[in-house]
């Protein structure tokens, strides 16, 4: 009985007893539902670092929102969305009309954007404000923020379901999609919109610097568990959920910052997946007799 009580106290009690922990958990679940599949597609399109660049790129928009309305998620989110989309579209435009590759144009735009964002915050805000924007405050998430995150996750799932077929074709064989008149650019832009939206959803909780953490780490970990695309997307959602539960619990019991703890939990799951996943290194190295044909 006492063991059960200990397990309950260590895992479930914080969420049962405290509303802010429940809201943080729901935020993590909602983030994982939207960011997980988007992260898997980013990884498969070899755009993992573009996701990282985009997460930095939303900073100036968030900073302007912060200057105008303080720590208001709708204002910061809207600012982040506008600037993030502008960076995504400009980078795409530069790479499609010149010889500069997409990752290089993303790098130039996000560095400019990051520097502008830090400058804007430092003009008016304190270093504490800057830390809020950079690292997020998942334990301070309110009802409105939850609705926004849940809304973005729902929109992500619906839009992904609608454009799943051409998006997969665009990733796998873009030349074929163009040849059959599939308007690949449109789906690419819609996909970038989803990336930016999910980063905006993530930055209130994890900050602009780590919002991409719950997008990419679960996606990469999922690669060690599933071989099909739907399987990878589902695994990424599950990993994000587990990282949220574990990270929030560790943060609650030890008093360390919640955002980085959640991302580090996702890193831990990634490491375990790399070692012991269905397609992980240990299982591959286990000597098993080969088959006859």
């Amino acid at each position, binding site marked *: 009985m006492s063991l059960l009580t200990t397990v309950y106290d260590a895992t479930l009690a914080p969420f049962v007893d405290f509303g802010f922990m429940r809201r943080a958990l729901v935020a993590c679940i909602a983030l994982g539902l939207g960011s997980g599949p988007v992260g898997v597609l980013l990884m*498969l399109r070899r755009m993992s670092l573009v996701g990282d660049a985009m997460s930095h790129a939303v900073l100036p928009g968030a900073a302007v929102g912060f200057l105008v309305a303080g720590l208001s998620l709708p204002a910061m989110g809207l600012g982040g969305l506008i600037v993030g989309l502008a960076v995504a579209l400009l980078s795409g435009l530069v790479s499609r009309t010149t010889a500069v590759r997409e990752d290089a144009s993303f790098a130039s735009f996000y560095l400019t954007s990051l520097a502008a964002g830090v400058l804007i915050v430092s003009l008016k805000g304190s270093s504490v404000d800057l830390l809020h924007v950079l690292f997020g405050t998942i334990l301070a998430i309110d009802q409105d923020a939850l609705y926004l995150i849940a809304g973005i996750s729902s929109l992500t799932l619906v839009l992904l379901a*609608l*454009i799943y*077929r*051409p998006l*997969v*074709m665009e*990733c*796998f*064989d*873009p*030349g*074929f*999609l*163009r*040849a*059959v*008149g*599939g308007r690949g650019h449109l789906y690419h832009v819609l996909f970038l919109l989803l990336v930016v939206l999910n980063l905006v959803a993530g930055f209130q909780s994890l900050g602009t610097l780590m919002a991409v953490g719950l997008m990419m780490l679960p996606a990469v970990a999922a690669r060690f568990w*599933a*071989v*099909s*695309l739907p*399987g*990878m997307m589902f695994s990424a959602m599950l990993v994000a959920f587990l990282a949220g539960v574990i990270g929030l619990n560790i943060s609650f019991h030890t008093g360390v910052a919640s955002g980085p703890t959640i991302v580090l939990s996702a890193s831990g799951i990634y490491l375990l997946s790399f070692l012991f996943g269905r397609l992980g290194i240990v299982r591959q190295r286990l000597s098993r007799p080969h088959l006859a044909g």
Partner: protein
Amino acid sequence: MSCPDPKGAPIHLENLTITYQRHPAVHHVTGSFEAGSLTAIIGPNGAGKSTLIKALTGTMAASEGRIDRAGMSASRYGYLPQAAEVDRSFPLSVFDTVAMGDWHRLGVFGGMKRQDVARALDALDKVGLGGFEQRRISELSSGQFQRVLFARLLLQDAPVILLDEPFNAIDERTTRDLLALIRHWHEHGRTVIAVLHDMSQVRQCFPQTLLMAREAIAWGATEDVLQEHNLRRANMMEESWREDAHTCAVHEEART
């Protein structure tokens, strides 16, 4: 296929020029691929063969001249891209890859009905991959993967079929089987155009040939095109662009 084969359509090129950063990859090419013809496009590396195929698919714009597709939309053409342009590590099953060939029927939202599934499985059977439908494409050999792309073409059921280096890095048996499919398409009146490098293959299987070296060196019956003097002329093409090149005289003439 249970439905009758669609008849091939002609394609006429009129003074077609396609450029990269103003340098021509295809230069003032004029001529016709007749309806139902089987044509090999050959030429040295950098001769503009793949660029021409991409222009025929409608994915590369002409800098000058035009392509007359006799009223048919380029999106109805069947297209096999070069193997290097396809991401074979993508987590897709063989069936899902073949099913992409049904795009013009299903579009973005259409669901596959029982007969669509049967057609996709039938296409896999025809390329000798029956029973492979649930395999991952990353588990296939180069030859098997090329068979999958041919099954996708079968499902496209297109009147015009464009193949960009279809036999690169695949074994003799697979090449023989896929050549038989190409012959079948030709016999049933489809227009087939393939970029190739193997001259003996071209001599044996392709009645028409377009020899390119950016411009069309020769275009017509294969035995006439593959003359020594034509091949020598094509091989004299400079592979790289001349940075000091002047504006094209034909272009200037047309403007004045």
